């Protein structure tokens, strides 16, 4: 990154200038978070990035507070959680913020990923940005799984047992690896203790990868609903205030939903068995992970072989790394891809169906349906993505973002209109400024 602001950043304050010439924090903030050119047609699906940043910080703050009242010991853990709920001032609130927060975090990340797939955000030149996102997803899953073990309820214990046992499917070294993960011969105190340490560590690792993710984003710039690259400054608006305000508004709506869960149905997404202390002698009738891991759990159970099931489950995540190269279409946005659009929505249905099936007992029709869902999940990525790109005739793609916005025909949304109005007002005319000047109007 360039040391000094190449833009028209001229701070008035002497102090700011003095600091900025030694450590260009102010230039960086100005370039990357204020003037940063952002496609003017971004819709509300683009607000989940900011929502996810908000969720990560919420989880870290509430989690650090909970850690101050918790004890990672099999003798104490279950009681300490109840201690937080009953004795610690506002402990109930902070714990529910954290527990519900995990669900909200995953809801937002799945929306964010689905948006990326629908609008082709994984395609060149954003492959590394996409892959960093997949790394974040996998880290989030590991963190969430270990966090769920900490209350040391029945689902904590048996979830941990089942998931760590996945590694025993590895030929030859599997059982050794599992004992190494446990620090014993079953899930026990050493396991709980190390999961707590890692659960505290991993969010900071996630934060590090998020910084890389944002860095990569700011190299290529945002994708947008048309999938057409930014051609000139006519296509963009400055990040602040246009995107900051839009993100904040979406965040408020998101927080309403979040608060509804925290205050009215805090245990709705949890499992009642986790309010029973862990008992290594009694397996609950149905072990189910939290809802956000259910589709993957359904895939694990759909395969009638232990190693096969484990391989398929991990492959369902790892396959995301290579989709930039599996998709052969040069058109990014599904808006202009009639066949891909259908395949995508069927994929969404398959994912939701797998989520539902993961919560059902592994028998009869459920297994068959889970197999169909799993088959489609992989069919979508491995066959449909490459093949549709070769045979599909895309609809005409607009020449530029502003053309798409101004035409107002091809699926112009309210958000597009809002973005359009936003860019017009300062110019004081009915048209976008034709010059190549920064879209950011100079403030008086």
């Amino acid at each position: 990154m360039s040391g000094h602001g190449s833009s028209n950043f001229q701070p008035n304050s002497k102090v700011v200038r003095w600091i900025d010439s030694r450590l260009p924090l102010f230039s960086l903030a100005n370039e990357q978070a204020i003037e940063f050119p952002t496609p003017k047609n971004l819709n509300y699906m683009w607000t989940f990035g900011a929502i996810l940043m908000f969720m990560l910080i919420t989880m870290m703050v509430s989690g650090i507070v909970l850690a101050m009242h918790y004890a990672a010991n099999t003798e104490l853990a279950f009681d300490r959680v109840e201690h937080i709920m009953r004795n610690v001032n506002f402990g109930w609130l902070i714990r529910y913020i954290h527990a519900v927060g995990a669900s909200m975090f995953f809801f937002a990340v799945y929306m964010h990923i689905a948006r990326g797939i629908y609008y082709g955000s994984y395609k060149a030149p954003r492959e590394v940005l996409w892959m960093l996102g997949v790394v974040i997803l996998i880290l989030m899953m590991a963190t969430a799984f270990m966090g769920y073990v900490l209350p040391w309820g029945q689902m904590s214990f048996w979830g941990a047992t089942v998931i760590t046992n996945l590694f025993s499917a590895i030929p030859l070294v599997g059982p050794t690896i599992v004992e190494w993960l446990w620090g014993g011969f079953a899930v026990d105190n050493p396991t709980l203790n190390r999961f707590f340490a890692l659960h505290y560590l991993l969010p900071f690792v996630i934060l590090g990868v998020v910084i890389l993710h944002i860095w990569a984003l700011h190299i290529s710039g945002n994708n947008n609903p048309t999938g057409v690259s930014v051609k000139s400054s006519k296509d963009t608006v400055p990040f602040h205030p246009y995107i900051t305000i839009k993100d904040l508004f979406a965040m408020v709506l998101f927080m309403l939903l979040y608060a509804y869960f925290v205050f009215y149905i805090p245990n709705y997404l949890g499992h009642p068995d986790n309010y029973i202390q862990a008992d290594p002698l009694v397996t609950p009738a149905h072990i189910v992970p939290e809802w956000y891991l259910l589709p993957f759990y359904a895939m694990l159970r759909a395969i009638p072989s232990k190693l096969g099931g484990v391989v398929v489950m991990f492959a369902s995540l790892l396959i995301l790394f290579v989709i930039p190269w599996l998709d052969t279409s040069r058109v990014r946005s599904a808006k202009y891809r009639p066949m891909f659009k259908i395949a995508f929505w069927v994929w969404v249905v398959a994912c939701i169906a797998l989520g539902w099936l993961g919560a059902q007992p592994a028998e009869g029709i459920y297994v068959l349906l889970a197999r169909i869902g799993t088959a489609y999940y992989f069919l979508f990525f491995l066959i449909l993505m490459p093949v549709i790109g070769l045979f599909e005739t895309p609809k005409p793609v607009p020449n530029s973002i502003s053309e798409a916005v101004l035409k107002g025909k091809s699926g112009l949304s309210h958000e597009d209109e809002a973005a359009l109005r936003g860019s017009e007002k300062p110019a004081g005319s009915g048209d976008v400024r034709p010059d190549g000047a920064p879209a950011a109007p100079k403030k008086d």
Partner: protein
Amino acid sequence: MATTEHTDNTHGTTRRDFLFIATGAVGAVGVAGVAWPFIDQMNPDASTQALASIEVDISALATGESMTVMWRGRPIFIRRRTETEVQEAKDTPLSELRDPVARNPNLGGEEPATDVNRAAEGQEDLLVMIGICTHLGCVPLGQQGDYGGWFCPCHGSHYDTAGRIRKGPAPLNLEIPPYTFASESTLVIG
């Protein structure tokens, strides 16, 4: 390059190359040496290993009864099987078994999973097994499932009356712990 001035050997490798590789190799060994303690600390510690052996009094166990004890944090199923159960297990041809190996460390090697090889030596009605499903580690329920043995509710694995996997995702027969008899009615597990 400056290196060529200091050496007669100008045909590729130099003293500097040798030193570079040798230093790098020593460094790599050093890193591995430091890494190992940090990896190995996660393995079962001495106090966990020390719990490796327990004694169980089975004198009160009547035919058709089971008991469960804890060994190394895992449930051990001890069952005095009924004659029907033993007979059913004996009548099952080995060709029908998913896992044809006895999984009995008390015998040593790769014995076939006959009922005799699964049961306690000299007491064919006595079955001692680790009560952990070989799929993903749940505790199976006794005297249930399609084969009247054990059934794992988690992912639907069925074991027969000798604890052998017959149906479902589990790959192996229920494991048998190492055990001996201190006396006729005292079992030493581990």
